[in-house]
């Protein structure tokens, strides 16, 4: 302990790896996860890519939307990595669901392609995205599935889908381990909160350089510190739920459960973290949660914006208990909105409106309340 503490104060920040390559493979995706990543601020993509985070390796990103090169010049490193010949550590970031290419191949085609190989006539034929994931995963330091499509299947895997879409975990199987010994890491969300993505990448990079502990993941491979809690627990409207007051229409300020919020049973941190740079967040602005981070999304939460059946019991219980609690709180609040001087004067000198003086009942309650409050400590000003 003393030794490691001492190390903290001496020498440079360890840097085992200067550079780590990151291959971004988009399968059946909407590019929303890429866009979410670009929105992140803690850290930002430019920090990761410019190597301006001391202790974290510089990320050499191979991403179709941000690349300078196009076509074969862009694909070449993918080919090397798939053969294990890149000569540098790399992670694979997957966005989008994995389509069942065997279905498309039945009629000689593909669902999702990236790059092309020549066929027997020398004509280019697209390479299915999923074949890149399979081949590159063998040599990858980590495979990170980004967004609900890649982590669980998401919207392209919803009922009736024609492509048999599934997740990266489904593709690689439960026995898959990366070079670092990790199963597929899953960062869900449709799209994920951007910092959830960059923070997880940074955590892995800091781990690689021996600076941070191996990040903890839950039984579904989610970063445990991000997805441990329900979004309801961090909701700005949770107090309304507790007091049993509920929005009836879109736009109302109260808890949204009765107009379709699934927050109490959804693991997500957007209300605490905000959507971009701490701003926004679904219920913060007034929009019900439809569970976009969950493996059951979308079918288990449909039809969207209909009261979830599970809330019938709990919201009605809080309606009963909440009514009592709310009234008690309003009484306390009345007291707390007064200064000692105004109590003494028996009058509130506000020009904004007439503030009623407390009646006898309220005075008695306040007296009893304060007795308890200062039962074993001095009341300020009493000595």
């Amino acid at each position, binding site marked *: 302990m003393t030794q490691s503490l001492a190390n903290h104060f001496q020498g440079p920040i360890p840097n085992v790896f200067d550079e780590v390559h990151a291959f971004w493979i988009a399968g059946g995706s909407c590019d929303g996860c890429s866009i979410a990543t670009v929105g992140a601020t803690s850290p930002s993509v430019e920090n990761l890519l410019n190597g301006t985070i001391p202790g974290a390796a510089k990320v050499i990103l191979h991403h*179709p*939307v941000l690349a300078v090169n196009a076509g074969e010049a862009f694909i070449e490193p993918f080919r090397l990595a798939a053969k294990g010949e890149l000569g540098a550590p790399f992670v694979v970031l997957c966005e989008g669901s994995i389509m069942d290419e065997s279905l498309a191949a039945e009629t000689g085609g*593909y669902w*999702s392609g990236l790059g092309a190989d020549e066929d027997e006539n020398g004509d*280019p034929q697209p390479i299915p995205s999923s074949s890149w994931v399979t081949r590159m995963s063998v040599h990858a330091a980590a495979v990170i599935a980004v967004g609900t499509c890649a982590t669980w299947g998401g919207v392209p895997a919803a009922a009736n889908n*024609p492509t048999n879409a599934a997740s990266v975990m489904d593709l690689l199987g439960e026995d898959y381990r990366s070079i670092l010994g990790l199963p597929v890491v899953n960062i869900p969300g449709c799209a994920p909160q951007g910092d959830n993505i960059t923070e997880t990448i940074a955590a892995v990079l800091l781990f690689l350089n021996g600076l941070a502990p191996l990040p903890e993941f839950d039984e579904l491979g989610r970063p445990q510190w991000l997805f441990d809690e329900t979004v309801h627990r961090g909701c700005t409207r949770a107090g309304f739920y507790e007091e049993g007051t509920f929005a009836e229409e879109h736009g109302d300020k109260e808890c949204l459960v009765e107009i379709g919020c699934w927050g109490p049973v959804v693991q997500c941190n957007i209300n605490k973290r905000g959507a971009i740079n701490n701003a926004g967040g679904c219920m913060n*602005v007034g929009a019900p949660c439809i569970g976009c981070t969950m493996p059951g999304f979308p079918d288990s939460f449909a039809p969207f914006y209909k009261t979830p059946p599970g809330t019938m019991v709990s919201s009605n219980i809080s309606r009963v208990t909440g009514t009592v609690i709310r009234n008690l709180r309003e009484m306390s609040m009345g007291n707390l909105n007064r200064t000692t001087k105004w109590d003494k004067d028996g009058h509130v000198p506000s020009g904004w409106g007439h503030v009623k003086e407390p009646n006898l009942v309220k005075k008695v309650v306040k007296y009893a309340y304060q007795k308890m409050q200062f039962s074993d400590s001095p009341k300020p000003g009493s000595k």
Partner: protein
Amino acid sequence: MCFKNLPIAFDDEGNAYLKEGLKDPYEHKVVDLGEEQEVLKGLLERNGFIRNIDYDPVTRVAGALAFHSVVDLEKKKVLSTNSMATLFRGYEVILKGRDPRDAAYISSRACGVCGGVHATTAALAIEMALDIKPPPLGIVMRNILLAIEYLYDHPLHLFLLAGPDYSEELVRETNPELIDKAAETKAKNKDVHGYDTVLDIMKDLNPLKGKLYLEALSMTRVAREAYVLIGGKYPHPQSVVPGGLSVTVTASVLNEVYSRLIKFFDYSQKVTGIWDDVFDFFLESNPEYAKCGIRPATMMDTGVWDRPDHYDASFANCDKWGEARWSTPGVLVDGEVVTTKLTELNAGIEEFVEHSYYEKWDGHRFKEDANGMPLSPNHPWNKETIPKPGKQSWKDRYSWDTAPTWDRMPMEAGAYTRMYMTAKAQKAPASKFLENTGTSMKIKVPKHFLPEKTLEWKIPEHWNAFERNRARAYCIPYSAMVAMENWLLAMDLIKNGETKVSVPYEIPKKGTHIGFGAWGAGRGFLTHHLIVENGVIENYQIITPSTLNAAPRTPWGEMGPYEEAVLNTPILEKFDKPEDYKGIDILRAIRSFDPCMPCTTHIMAKDSDHMVTREVTTCACGVE
């Protein structure tokens, strides 16, 4: 008379009817592309300097786009082009049979780049189908939300996707002769952006390191912060609902949005100044650049931003509320306005799948719209998508994108179409900030740190890659001022106590209800066509901007916009050996459209045995 090719005529009262006496009114020519391929094959075999130039993927575009061209590297000419969408996801199939309430959130996932427009367009389609009229503040807040979306989208494209092609780093590789020239060329707009020479600007366009690149990244975040204050998150806002928005509008929300919006006033001046300097430099250095990506200004747009005193969602009034929008819907053919009516825009649309991985569908359920205007069997309300993945073949099928046309013409779409239409048509409402002159749009940008300035975007003589990008830059002040105007309106509504943002609605359990949503994506034209049958979605079709732009050939052999624009592009890049050729001119031409592939293809299953109706979306986010 807006239709020249479709069999639709109008009587003296202006009512449309189907031309009589035609055996098959909707027949069209079918051209065999095999011959062209044979000729090309011969050329390729005989001449070493004629080469296949393939980009898979085309990078710095959103989504899965591949592009094939045959280029004569000696004559510096493009001989043939094919545009390919390389992804298919099947959203239309997934939507079929669902509760209409799911449409906004499922279809939103068509594209994560234009994060909120699909949800909005879906909400509009449902509002039309089910007769739901949002309250004024709901409409106004929606306008603000969707204007802010463009404030993120346009800088992202200009500096992160297209911008590197004009940066010192890339130009030094492809056209070193321009570097010295740029060093000697004084920047005309130094007063707003501070750069002395054009080369100074180009250096700061360098990817990842350049100050303008990094500034754009951070400005996209400022816009997105403002966006998520109303939308909850980006992409895929949670708050867009049929009938308005699910947002609690407080003084803080409006203040926090405003504090971010005003940062785009000075930035508008800067961005337009930067791109005017860079593009003028290229066009003056070598007039041949005017041909890069050139094609006629034949384009269409849905219009966007509804007026709270006009919009009632109804089909019956859609020509009126459409023309009242802050951006005017309609069609331009070779730069001339041929219609500004949503009903005519709608009726002229068809989709063809002869060169796409789909089978042709049968049936012609809706022969006319509610006004009696004839609808083709290829119209989205009649279309079914039957995906059939197959081998890529230039003479047969080569894309997951379809070939949409309006009045049998391939159409271009873009943010710039929004401004072009509006400036030309002069139908948009009177405004404190915007003036449409018929040849230009004048945009009065209020003072922030810089003094107030009136920016003017002029309709250009040639429609090329540079003008597309320049116009997109001017769409930043345009969108910012529409947001500002609507923010002022929101304040007025709140002053008058009109604080409702949504109306409740019921899903009718019986009957057929049809509607379409028409709203602009960051890249322009976007429609959702919806049929609700006995309370569930029976058919859902999306046409996105990139569905239009990335289209393969029509059955009669006309090229899609990317294909045409690249074919017309001269090769001005300098290279010694064919191996060194990078194709910057072709890529500039493609990227000027702001391709966005995720929504370009969607499908919807017709029934459980995998019959699929395809929904076309116009951006790259649609291919599943």
